[in-house]
């Protein structure tokens, strides 16, 4: 195998053969790579029909009073807040034409990226606060995120004091902090930052009363065939973050 330092050279027969084999090999590797990338891309977008059941998960959530929806005081924008019958926290009118369920993990960086992005602000400001979207936060604690169970329990304990969403926002904003160590201590500090009753929060948090909820939430999300976090279900249609607002617009247009 050789190359001569000039163009238009005569290529020997054995070199031609080796080059041909090489090009075929490159072609095979290229096709395999393209197939893998397509499989990855499709995997994130599939199962929209399978996900239709996930809009109404019917799983008991230990540690919560199942079967009873709880309305919380509306926020400063007069937007409905509360916890639905399945025990998941929501914001936005329950009569909104579009229901969005976000399957999310507090320790998932892509989920934090979503919550701290302009996309989330647009969702809340232009869709939730205007009565168009009923937004439900569905925990999907992933097993390899070891600090998530504590964060999830902290969010529930904050929810007991009507500040689930404040804790939700703070957990995602400070994810890089609490997920790397001293988790319990940091969560206590966050409780103070959002002005929770510290004693009540500590009592709730240290009791572990919401610990069984971790497995239940994971099982509910798995049963709904959720492939990754964050995943959104818009009126039964499973989409990823980049497809969220177009899917909501399409659902609103179809009303």
């Amino acid at each position: 195998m050789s190359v001569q330092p000039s163009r238009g050279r005569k290529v020997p027969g054995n070199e031609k053969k080796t080059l041909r084999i090489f090009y075929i090999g490159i072609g095979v590797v290229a096709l395999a790579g393209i197939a893998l990338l397509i499989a990855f891309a499709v995997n994130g977008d599939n199962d929209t029909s399978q996900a239709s059941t996930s809009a109404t998960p019917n799983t008991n959530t230990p540690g919560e009073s199942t079967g009873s929806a709880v309305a919380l005081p509306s926020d400063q924008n007069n937007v409905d807040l509360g916890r639905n019958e399945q025990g998941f926290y929501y914001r936005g009118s329950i009569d909104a034409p579009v229901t969005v369920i976000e399957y999310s993990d507090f320790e998932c960086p892509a989920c934090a990226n979503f919550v701290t992005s302009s996309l989330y602000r647009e969702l809340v400001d232009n869709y939730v606060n205007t009565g168009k979207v009923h937004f439900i936060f569905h925990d999907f604690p992933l097993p390899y995120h070891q600090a998530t169970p504590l964060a999830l329990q902290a969010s529930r304990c904050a929810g007991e004091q009507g500040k689930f969403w404040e804790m939700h926002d703070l957990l995602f904003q400070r994810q890089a902090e609490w997920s790397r160590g001293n988790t319990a201590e940091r969560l206590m500090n966050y409780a103070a930052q959002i002005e929770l009753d510290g004693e009540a929060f500590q009592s709730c948090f240290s009791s572990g009363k919401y610990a069984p909820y971790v497995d239940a939430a994971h099982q509910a999300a798995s049963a709904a065939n959720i492939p990754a976090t964050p995943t959104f279900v818009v009126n039964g249609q499973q989409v990823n973050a980049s497809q969220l607002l177009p899917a909501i617009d399409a659902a609103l247009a179809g009303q």
Partner: protein
Amino acid sequence: MVERSLYPRMVGAVLALISMFNAGYLQLSRMKMSDLVCPVGGGCETVQISPWSTIPPGSGIPISLIGLLGSTLLFVLLLRALQTDSLGPLPLPPTLLLISSIGVCFSLYLTVVQLFVIQAVCFWCALSALLELGMLGAIVLDWRAWRRGRGAIQTGHIAGATPRARS
């Protein structure tokens, strides 16, 4: 006649192709804003989500996109180099060496950022750095052989050698 092995260019092209798909996967994952599959460790998401995943850090061009474009350029040039030593007036071996060296410097910077700033290592980024190093190794071998052949031609030390034709 001055003859050199094509194998370094072939090896470089294969590594560049793998690097393209590696960067493509990261870029696709970034566009989908979905979880990355991290085969070893768990730092992929942390690195991908960090402000350092763009140039300039925070809200610039995604590094995965830069990697994809860079490895595609190297792949195309290496394929071209299997046929000729030059691209127009541009001799390919030093051009490849320059681009590949920039790629390795970039990978070194990213590795330092991962280890000491983000304090998390992304498997795919580490793989990308190794691929860059492999490509540089192959390209250096090719460049050295090209220089030897060029010097020999210019000094007329090789019987039958003719000055390199410009394309």
